[in-house]
């Protein structure tokens, strides 16, 4: 079993579109399990149109709440909270309550309250699903609005995906990762055999590419790169290829700008399904052939 994670650093470079194409190609040659680890913007299902099989609750962190009857208005909770989560409701200086959006779930106020007026319970922070797609089982999730712990949800999804993959002797776990370099990204790339970074030929994407590459080096994960919308700025594309060559990172291909990718998306399809002869489709096919050698 191999695990491939698709990342980008910068958002909106085409991670999900590339992941869905690779899923389609890989599923013709091997059995695979998919995980959409971009739980903030879980878009893979919009291209794979899976059927939901099982639904699970995701339990997030603690949220404190204050029993107004028991509270003696001593203010100790507000004093110890470092996240500005203890507030005076309606501006009443004698009343205390917890703003659940700001509450970090550290339980410091719960331990400090002299009259045990504070409780702290774990809350349901999202839902995750096991669904069936034409490419294989898909694990995906929905975070509830404004919830934290998305890294923990990603870890839970990936654990379930790897478990199913292991028990069915699958060849590949394909993970659609989140943008950035922080908590959910680190959770998404844990245990990956290879990362495919989808970048673009622009100053922002190049800046972010270097940060995600450093992050992957930090965690000892091998990287490969493909350049989306490569013809928007050919000299920047060449700059990426040269810097990857110097760092020994394989560049698996260029994908030209192709408005059929968006047209396909509007029909809930990948560009490969929508127009297999389009420039973007041909490019992704080339990338998959190289990727297969690494896997």
């Amino acid at each position, binding site marked *: 079993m191999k695990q491939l994670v698709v990342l980008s650093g910068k958002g*909106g*470079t085409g991670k999900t579109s590339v992941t869905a194409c690779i899923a389609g190609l890989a599923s013709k040659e091997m059995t695979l399990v998919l995980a959409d680890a971009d739980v903030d913007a879980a878009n893979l299902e919009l291209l794979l149109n899976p059927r939901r099989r099982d639904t699970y609750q995701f339990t997030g962190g603690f949220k404190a709440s204050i029993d107004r009857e028991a509270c003696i208005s001593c203010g100790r909770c507000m004093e110890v909270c470092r996240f500005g989560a203890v507030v005076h409701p309606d501006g009443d200086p004698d009343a205390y309550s917890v703003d659940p959006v700001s509450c*970090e*779930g550290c339980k410091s106020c719960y331990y*400090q309250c002299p009259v045990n007026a504070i409780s702290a319970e774990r809350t349901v922070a999202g839902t995750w699903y096991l669904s069936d797609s034409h490419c294989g089982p898909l694990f995906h999730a929905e975070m509830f609005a404004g*919830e934290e712990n998305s890294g923990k949800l990603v870890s839970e999804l990936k654990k379930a995906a790897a478990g199913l993959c292991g028990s069915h002797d699958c060849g590949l776990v394909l993970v659609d990762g989140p943008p950035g370099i922080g908590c959910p990204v680190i959770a998404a790339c844990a245990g990956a055999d290879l990362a495919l970074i989808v970048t673009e030929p622009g100053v922002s994407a190049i800046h972010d590419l270097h940060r995600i590459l450093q992050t992957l080096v930090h965690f000892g994960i091998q990287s490969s790169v493909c350049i989306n919308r490569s013809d928007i700025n050919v000299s920047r594309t060449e700059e990426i290829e040269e810097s990857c060559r110097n760092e020994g990172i394989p560049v698996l291909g260029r994908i030209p700008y192709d408005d059929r990718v968006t047209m396909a998306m509007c029909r809930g399809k990948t560009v490969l399904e929508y127009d297999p002869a389009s420039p973007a489709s041909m490019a992704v096919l080339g990338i998959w052939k190289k990727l297969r050698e690494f896997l």
Partner: protein
Amino acid sequence: MVIAVASGKGGTGKTTVAVSLALAASNDADARPLLLDCDVEEPNCALFLDLDRITRKPTGVLVPEVDPVKCDLCGRCAEVCVWKAIAVAGEKVLVFRDLCHGCGSCTLMCPRGAIHEIMHETGSIEESSNRSVDYAGGVLNVGQVMAVPVISALLDGHLRDRGKRTVILDSSPGSSCPMVETVKASDYVILVTEPTPFGLHDLDAAVRVVTDQLHIPSGVIVNRDGTGNDDVIDFCRERGLPVLARIPMDRRIAEVLSEGKPLVRALPEYMDLFREILATIGETTS
């Protein structure tokens, strides 16, 4: 006035909008606008600003340090730590700094007063300016997990004495904690999206945070207009969200941005659009 630029989906043009608004605000304001890059995982504003010398100050999380002489290995610290960032192992207390959220609970709960706190550097705050705007941004160190402490350090340090300045916050994509930390500090949120199924799906998630949960007034900018379909516009109508602007799909925009040129400088015909957006928001929030 503090305006946050957020999106749900990544790569829709938050930084382009944030930089353009800051430059548009510099034209007629009595005070210099302040642009704060809150996308600390992948900060990009500085690439578009032609900044003077950048100063950097470390920032991070207050983590526990245990005095082995005072500590009697009672384990209370480990019991109260929700994140398992501190543990007693044999004759020693181990601190896992990267897991620590800096809540200070272990320090308060230690019965022997054996814990004090030290700063664990997880990022930095950079500051600079150019001839039109002042800039500050957070940068999360590579390998670090938590973006929020860097964002909150940036906002704490720069929002307090803002006076009458227009402050623009460039948020991370998504709708979880880094985005929430940024938008909750604002008076108005601009949600930048594109007219595609992905853009709509992620806009919906962002609206549920900004409107339904935080109740902050907001409006939408539709970028790459002309691609995709009309579903985003229909959604805005249904949710009663004003469409502040529609920026057309224009290959020239992609080309100038790829070279790090600010949109309103490279293609000045867009300057009026961003001035109008500022005027609209000014009327809405006053």
